[in-house]
């Protein structure tokens, strides 16, 4: 009986380092044999886990350190440009109270980001509501795409900011005008990518639909929409990237609240630290938006086979 437990306990030690502790109580003879073997196993696995992580993290950390280093050295002279330490100290102050409100033109950075995101959200949302169905129509009916495509080719290269005066004229207010520029810049990628997705639905799937004689509703919901979804999400990702680029410029022109306005306002106050903070904030928010959409796209992508 004792030899049986002993052999089983020894047999377990290489694979399960926890086992010797449990069996130690019932068979003390094992402890001596197991003790030297046990610590070896976790040390090896720890190294195996840490090494790739280190390899993955090291280059970006190195790049960031280099960037900050160059920044530090470059701002040592009296150029008026704040260095990393100065900016960091200022950032701590700015982020210690991100949601203060001292009248319409002096609000915390949190409010500024929120109102920029709100404009992007609204402009972008309306663009999706208009652009995606339009893309479906253009993809499905070649007459429509032949009719509209030259127009899109003409308008797409125009900077969305050129549309800002039109927005100001029509809406008579700065806020909807900024949203309007976001709408304009977001709609093109959504139309074009959706249309392309519809045109690229494999003929096989459409033949299935024809053989089953599916209703138009079923064709759209069960075949077209899922097949087009990855293309649509690419369009959405492209447009939210552009929208986030454009909002900064649009808000500089329109004023009010918003991260773009904040940049311009701090320039007028000559608070260059704040401008650098804003640059980082804009970058990080843009990165997060992009990552969010990549995750959504991953969730809805299916594997072709």
């Amino acid at each position: 009986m004792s030899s049986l437990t002993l052999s089983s306990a020894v047999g377990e030690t290489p694979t399960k380092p926890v086992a010797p502790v449990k069996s130690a109580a019932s068979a003390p003879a094992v402890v001596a044999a197991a003790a030297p073997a046990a610590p070896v196993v976790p040390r090896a696995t720890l190294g195996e886990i840490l090494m790739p992580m280190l390899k993955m993290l090291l280059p970006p950390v190195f790049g960031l350190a280099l960037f900050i280093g160059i920044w530090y050295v470059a701002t040592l002279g009296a150029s008026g440009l704040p260095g990393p330490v100065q900016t960091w100290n200022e950032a701590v102050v700015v982020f210690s109270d991100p949601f203060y409100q001292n009248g319409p033109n002096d609000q915390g950075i949190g409010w500024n980001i929120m109102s920029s995101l709100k404009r992007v959200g609204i402009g972008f949302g309306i663009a999706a509501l208009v652009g995606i169905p339009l893309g479906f129509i253009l993809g499905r009916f070649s007459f429509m795409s032949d009719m509209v495509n030259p127009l899109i080719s003409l308008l797409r290269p125009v900077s969305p900011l050129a549309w800002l005066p039109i927005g100001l004229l029509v809406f008579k207010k700065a806020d909807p005008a900024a949203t309007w520029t976001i709408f304009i810049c977001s709609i093109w990628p959504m139309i074009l990518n959706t249309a392309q997705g519809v045109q690229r639905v494999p003929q096989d799937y459409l033949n299935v639909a024809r053989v089953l004689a599916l209703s138009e509703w079923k064709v759209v919901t069960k075949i077209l929409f899922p097949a087009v979804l990855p293309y649509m999400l690419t369009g959405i990702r492209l447009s939210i990237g552009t929208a986030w680029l454009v909002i900064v410029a649009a808000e500089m022109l329109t004023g009010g609240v918003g991260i773009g306005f904040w940049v311009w306002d701090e320039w007028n106050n000559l608070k260059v630290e704040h401008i650098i903070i804003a640059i980082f904030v804009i970058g990080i928010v843009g990165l997060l938006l992009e990552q969010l959409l990549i995750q959504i796209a991953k969730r809805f992508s299916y594997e072709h086979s």
Partner: protein
Amino acid sequence: MDKFVNIENVGQTFDTKKGKFVALRDIHLNIRQGEFIALIGHSGCGKSTLLNLIAGLTQPTSGVLLCDGREIGGPGPERAVVFQNHSLLPWLTCFDNVYLAVERVFSQKESKAKLKQRTHDALALVGLTHAENKFPHEISGGMKQRVGIARALSMQPKVLLMDEPFGALDALTRAKLQDELMKICEATKATVVMVTHDVDEAVLLSDRIVMMTNGPAATIGEILEVNLPRPRTRLTLAHDPAYIDYRAAVLEFLYQKQAHVEKQAA
């Protein structure tokens, strides 16, 4: 029913950049109910074109096709197609792929539970009960093709049309699916038209083998009646002199009478 599917003087011409291309001409064929027909010929001979015409996916340039006394005006679930590349929708599970077809055909008359039962039955028929909730990319090529067959059979079609259904599979899987298909046809008394380029497959499965001449302007060259008793098993047939004769006849047609594929095409 002697003329369940009736193909009368059918021709198919395609407009191409180089002008008109005659794919098929003068096709006459009557298919009995419950009959298994194999269409065989070299690639490019228009056998898939003929199948698409029966499916209604394309319309003939001349002539007329009838199914159960009615003209074939377009595709429909009474002429189910098993596609060469299975054509399962990748965003639906195997169950949902079949259910989509079942729902289309039976939802007006039957309850949801009955529709689900039909779907389960169809997948059970091809031995895939265990894979019901898997997505197409999670299963093997042979299994996908079986789901495709289950989807087609679930609609209880008048005619089952198969476009080289086992062409992309390895030899062992193909043999297994051929055996399953024979059992299913035995059980359901299905009328089947199958495009194939595999001589053994044609002889093993068919009641008649329709051999097509080389394109362009392909037509039916010969029709071979396969009078082998059913149920057939590949092992006993391997030494059956009649089987060997049928096989030889098809080979002779393909490689002697219609041998010069490259020359004719060029």
